[in-house]
């Protein structure tokens, strides 16, 4: 079996190219392993080898995020690696952020499994733990030997597609990713056992800590709509009959923007709802029940609202993750703003 090809990222300091005064050096590449890469390479045994090391100054990376990433990706790409490793960064903040950013970019854009390592207080942990496995380390390079050993072993697992255990078992920072597994006892039994502990004031561990959703501060109320441009947004799954964007009936990963400029009312033969979370009978009888175009046109004619946007925006609400919903909103609100929309009516189901 041929060895897995690994590309390693380190900063100028660990590459032996000066200290802080050289932190502004742009990306460069070197063949084989460099600095801490030697121990890492050794930890792989016969299974993998570092074929190249890419280096960048921490200040340069921080000040030229996009260019540094693009240039590094260009360098890394040509090695056709099986695995990408950055760091360990320990508690070096700028280095940790760079290690996280480049590992994330390599994984997402080049599709190469990537991992890094740093100390828990390194800001890179919070910034990238949801995107990456970040192995835990001590707070300084004094922990290098241990850190590299753990990083190397885990990296091989990742590259081989082996099952990854819990953060405690593997030694990575908790990523905040909910993963399934089969317990030895069924849920009902665990629930009764948890109840017995709780009611007897014994310690117990909940299987899911309550999330903090954060708060969205509402905008002040609009007192006069007569000069405002309004748009309709719905999570009720209303789409053109052929569902051109193939929006899912649940757990939506997409939203659609659909033209309604030529209609005074939602035509039943042109639109449908593909939402899987409610009975569609009454929506299908009259799509205006979910996207109230008929009423909005009346209000437009009566001058209650200034005008209605030429399109509405739709997704499916049921089962759609908060992350996806947040992403949709952030994205389409830019379009709404660019189109001069001043208020939206969001209909749910």
């Amino acid at each position, binding site marked *: 079996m041929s060895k897995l090809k690994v590309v390693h990222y380190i900063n100028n300091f660990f590459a032996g190219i000066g200290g802080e005064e050289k932190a502004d050096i742009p990306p460069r590449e070197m063949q084989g392993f460099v600095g801490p890469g030697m121990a890492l390479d050794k930890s792989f045994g016969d299974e993998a080898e570092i074929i190249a090391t890419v280096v960048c100054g921490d200040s340069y990376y921080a000040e030229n995020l996009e260019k540094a990433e693009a240039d590094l990706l260009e360098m890394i790409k040509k090695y056709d690696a099986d695995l990408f490793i950055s760091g360990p960064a320990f508690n070096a903040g700028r280095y940790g952020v760079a290690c996280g950013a480049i590992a994330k970019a390599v994984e997402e854009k080049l599709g190469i499994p990537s991992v890094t390592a740093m100390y828990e207080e390194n800001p890179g942990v919070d910034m990238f733990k949801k995107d990456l496995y970040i192995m835990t380390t001590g707070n300084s390079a004094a922990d290098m030997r241990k850190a590299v050993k753990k990083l190397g072993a885990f990296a091989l697992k990742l590259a081989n597609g082996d099952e*990854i255990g819990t953060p405690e078992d593997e030694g990575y920072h908790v990523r905040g990713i*909910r993963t399934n*597994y089969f317990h030895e006892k*069924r*849920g009902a039994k665990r629930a009764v056992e948890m109840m017995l502990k709780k*009611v007897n004031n014994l310690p117990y561990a909940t299987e899911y800590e309550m999330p903090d959703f954060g708060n969205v501060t509402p905008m002040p109320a609009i007192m006069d709509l007569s000069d405002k441009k309004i748009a309709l947004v719905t999570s009720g799954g209303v789409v053109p009959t052929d569902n051109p964007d193939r929006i899912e009936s649940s*757990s939506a990963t997409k939203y659609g923007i659909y033209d309604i400029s030529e209609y005074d009312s939602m035509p039943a033969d042109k639109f449908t709802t593909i939402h899987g979370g409610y009975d569609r*009978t009454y929506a299908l009888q009259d799509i205006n029940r979910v996207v109230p175009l008929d009423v909005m046109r009346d209000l437009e004619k009566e001058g209650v609202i200034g005008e209605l946007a030429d399109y509405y925006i739709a997704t499916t609400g049921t089962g759609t993750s*908060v992350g996806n919903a947040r992403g949709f909103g952030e994205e389409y609100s830019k379009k709404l703003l660019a189109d001069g929309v001043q208020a939206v009516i969001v209909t749910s189901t």
Partner: protein
Amino acid sequence: MRLEVGKIFINDIRFGESTHVENGVLYVNEKELIDLFIEDDRIKSAKIELAKPGESVRITPVKDVLEPRVKVSGSGTNFPGVVGNKVKQVGEGRTHVLSGAAVVTVGKIVGFQEGIVDMSGIGAEYTPFSKTLNICVVIEPEEGIESHAYEAAAREAGLIVTNFIGEAARNLEPDEIEVFETKGIIEQAKMYPDLPRIGYVCMLQSQGLLHDTYVYGVDAKKIIPTLMNPTEFMDGAVISGNCVASCDKIPTYLHQNDPIIEELFEKHGKELNFMGVIITNENVFLADKERCSDGVAKLARLMDLDGVLITEEGYGNPDTDLMMNCKKVEQNGIKTVLVTDEFPGRDGKSESLADAVKEADALVSCGQGNIVITMPPMDKVIGTLEDIETMIGGYDGSLKEDGSIEAEIQIIISATSAFGCNKLTARMH
């Protein structure tokens, strides 16, 4: 109230001249079963198919799963108050069960929310109904029929067939008899004065419009929280009429075999005193949520409980009912453990629930339903694969050319059921 549940272990199902049990084999006659409901104007045609554990069989879209039982003594019949059965109090006397067999209602989609039962392969690992011997009632609805009428027709056919098969158990000698008994509140409390008094709040899906549950034939939307004896469930007092997301659907079978009730009885009189069940609903209006969560907390207090387990059916909107029940019960000084499932997105990175309160500090997770798996093709499909891509958990491209299915596990019946019938759970990575 005291109920003897006599189980007749069924180890095979076959077609036969008549419906009967012989040496642990349940024989069913297709025509006999179909004739029971085929005159229903809402049904065009029907057939019976059998599916056994380990077979290369995929059953979909599955609407409900039911267990054949019969009341041998005590008042009432199995599934009281529906399909012509008289409304009589159940939960006492003796009930016989054809244990290991199940009736599965199948037919083209009603409303996106029916699911899959695979009898082998990875999909089979997620559903409890890959382990039962399934008598599938496959229904073809009359063309142009309204979806509520179709749902009702399929539900009623399932109940009628199940009770007919259950009759076969009437005169059999059970292989095992279990006795379940709950006394009146005062007497029950006195029986085990040193053990914590534990109750169970069972939230019934009642969002309406194909998300319904029936209690003695009453639409659960119209109930206010009430007290039930655990044995009433064993006699089919509560039945599923819903097409809620299939992974956390509570089919009638699970109401008849409620794992929470089983586990509470397991420790009853030893480590806890199981006082009874409070049923409540999951209506969509806030006023209903307020009224019913108040009612749950009040009943828990009137029963002088020390703790309650709360289960949920469905996700999203009912998460609010779950949290309101939890908060109000805890505010009365009664401890809660919640049992539910999670929907944090395919990447597992989002919040798992749609609502949260700080009082919800003890939760059992029945797994996250958004995980994508690929189920291999099966030699035989009972039902149709037509709707796979629009069923909840499916998406464009879910059905592969070779018949395999890539989908979120929420497409699998009871995969993450919040009755805790499975071992699946989730943890933080």
